[in-house]
C-alpha cells in the first residue's frame, strides 16, 4: 500500500514537472508574441527596413533589417569555420592523437567550455580589441573580433560533441572497413556516416548558440547599425540591440514592443532550428538503426 502510494506520487510529480516545462515554454512564446503585436500592427513591414532610430522624437524608425542580416551573416560565417575547425580537431583527437594528447585536449576543452561568455567578451574587448587597433583597424570592436570570440565560445562544444559521436562508432564497422583494405580516408568516411546524426546535431546547436548569443556580441561586435561590408566593420546583431536597450526603454511604448518583436524573431528562429535539427537527425538515423 505504502509502496503504491509512493510510486503514484512519484509519477504524479514527474508528470507535473514535465507539464510545467511545456507550459512555461508556451507561456514564454505567447507572452513575447503578445507584447510584440503592437509593433507588428503599427510598424508592419517597416520592421524589416534597414534604419533603426527608435528614440528620434519626430520620426522614429524601427527597422531591424540590417541587424537581422548582420546576425545571420555573423552566425553563418562563424558557424562554418567552427564546423570545419571542430570537425578537424575531433577527427584528429579520435584517430591520430596519442592518449596523452587526447586527454590533455579533452581536459582543456572541458575547462574552456566552462568559461562564462562575459569573460570571453572581456578578452575580446581588452586583448583582441587592442590588437586590432595596433594592426590598424578603425574599430577595436568589430565583426571579426565578435566572430573570433564566438568561435572560442562554441568550438569546445563542437569538438566534444563530434568527438563523442566518432567514439561511439562500433569497432566492428571500423574493422569491417579495414579488412576490405580501407586506409585512413575511407575508414573516416564510414565513421563520419555513422556519426552523422550526432555531428549534424552539433553543427546546428553551434549555429543556434551563436545566433542567440548576446553578451559577447554586445561587448565586442561594435554596435554600429550598418551592414557588414568588411571583416573589420563594427556591426550590431539583433541580440545586442535587445540586450542593450531593453533595460532603458519605457514599458508599453512602441519601442518596447519592437524589442519584443526582436525577441520573438530570435526565439522562433531558435525553435524552428531545433525542430529542423530533430527532423534531420531522425532521417540520418535511419541509415544506422534500420
Amino acid at each position, binding site marked *: 500500500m505504502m509502496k503504491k502510494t509512493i510510486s503514484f506520487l512519484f509519477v504524479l510529480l514527474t508528470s507535473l514537472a514535465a507539464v510545467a516545462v511545456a507550459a512555461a515554454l508556451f507561456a514564454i512564446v505567447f507572452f513575447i508574441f503578445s507584447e510584440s503585436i503592437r509593433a507588428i500592427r503599427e510598424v508592419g513591414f517597416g520592421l524589416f527596413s534597414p534604419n533603426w532610430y527608435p528614440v528620434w522624437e519626430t520620426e522614429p524608425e524601427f527597422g531591424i533589417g540590417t541587424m537581422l542580416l548582420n546576425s545571420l551573416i555573423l552566425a553563418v560565417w562563424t558557424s562554418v569555420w567552427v564546423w570545419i575547425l571542430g570537425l578537424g580537431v575531433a577527427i584528429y583527437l579520435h584517430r591520430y592523437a596519442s592518449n596523452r594528447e587526447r586527454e590533455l585536449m579533452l581536459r582543456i576543452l572541458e575547462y574552456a567550455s566552462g568559461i562564462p561568455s562575459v569573460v570571453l567578451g572581456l578578452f575580446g574587448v581588452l586583448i583582441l580589441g587592442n590588437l586590432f587597433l595596433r594592426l590598424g583597424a578603425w574599430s577595436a570592436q568589430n565583426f571579426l573580433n565578435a566572430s573570433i570570440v564566438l568561435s572560442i565560445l562554441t568550438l569546445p562544444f563542437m569538438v566534444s560533441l563530434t568527438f563523442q559521436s566518432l567514439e561511439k562508432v*562500433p569497432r*566492428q*564497422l571500423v*574493422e569491417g572497413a579495414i579488412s*576490405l*583494405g580501407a586506409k585512413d580516408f575511407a575508414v573516416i568516411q564510414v565513421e563520419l*556516416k555513422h556519426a552523422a546524426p550526432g555531428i549534424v546535431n552539433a553543427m546546428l546547436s553551434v549555429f543556434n548558440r551563436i545566433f542567440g548569443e548576446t553578451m559577447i556580441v554586445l561587448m565586442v561586435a561594435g554596435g554600429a547599425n550598418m551592414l557588414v561590408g568588411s571583416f573589420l566593420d563594427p556591426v550590431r546583431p539583433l541580440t545586442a540591440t535587445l540586450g542593450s536597450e531593453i533595460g532603458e526603454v519605457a514599458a508599453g511604448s512602441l519601442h518596447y514592443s519592437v524589442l519584443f518583436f526582436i525577441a520573438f524573431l530570435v526565439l522562433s528562429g531558435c525553435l524552428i532550428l531545433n525542430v529542423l535539427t530533430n527532423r534531420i537527425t531522425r532521417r540520418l538515423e535511419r*541509415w544506422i*538503426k*534500420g
Partner: protein
Amino acid sequence: MSEVVFEIKDLYAFYDDHCALQNVNLKIREKRVTAIMGPSGCGKSTLLRCLNRLNDLIPGFSLKGQILFRGQDIYRIRDLTEYRRRVTMVFQKPNPFPMSIFDNVAYGLRIHGITKKSILREKVEHALRMAALWDEVKEKLKKPAVQLSGGQQQRLCIARALALEPDVLLLDEPTSALDPIATMKIERLLEELAQQYTVVIVTHSMGQALRISDEVVFLYEGRLIEYGETSSIAKTPRHEVTKQFLTGKIG
C-alpha cells in the same frame, strides 16, 4: 593435393603478456573449406584475424613466427590494401556500413580505384548474385543496408567481400548471430563459393564443420591439437580433447 595458400610456421600470438596462440603450424589449401574449431577462448578468432592482419590494430598485440601467403611473408607486405583485397573477411556480427545496399558492396571497389559507374554497377550486381542476395534486393539498392534482416545483412557482407574478387574468404563465426534458416542459406552459399574460393571459417558448431568443411583444425588453449580431413577426424579423432569436443563434453 591442391596448392598451399597459407603456410603458418611456429606461430605465437600475444595480447600484452597473454599468449593466445602457441606454436601453431598449419597449411591451408586452395579451393577448400577449412574450418577452425575449438572451445571459446581457444584462439580461433585470433588465428583467423592474423590472416587478414586485423590484429595489427589491437594495442599490445604481438606475433612471433611466420605466416606465408603463397610463399610471401604477410608481415613483410607493404601494400596491405592490395593484400586485403585478396584476403577478405566476414565478421561474426553482420556489420553493414551506414550506407545504401549498393554503396556497401561498392565500398571496397571504390577503395581499390574503381569509380566508373557502369563497371561498379556490373560488379555490384555480380557480387550480390554470387551471395544469393540479388533477387531479394534488386528493387531496393538505394535503401539503407541496415533495413535488411540479419541473414540478408550477413549475405550483404559476404557480397561486399566477394566484390573484390578475392583469393581467400575468411569468415569468423558468420552464422552465430543468425537464426537456423538464415544459417542454412549461408551454409549453402559457402558450399557453392568453395568451388571458386579458398574459404577459412571459424565455427563453434561441429555440425556446421561437418556439413561444409573439407578440412578441420582443432585448437585448444592456444595450441593446435589436430588437423586434417574433416571426415576422417570426425570418424577417428586421434586426440582426447577432440574426442571430447566431438561428443559435446567440451565446447
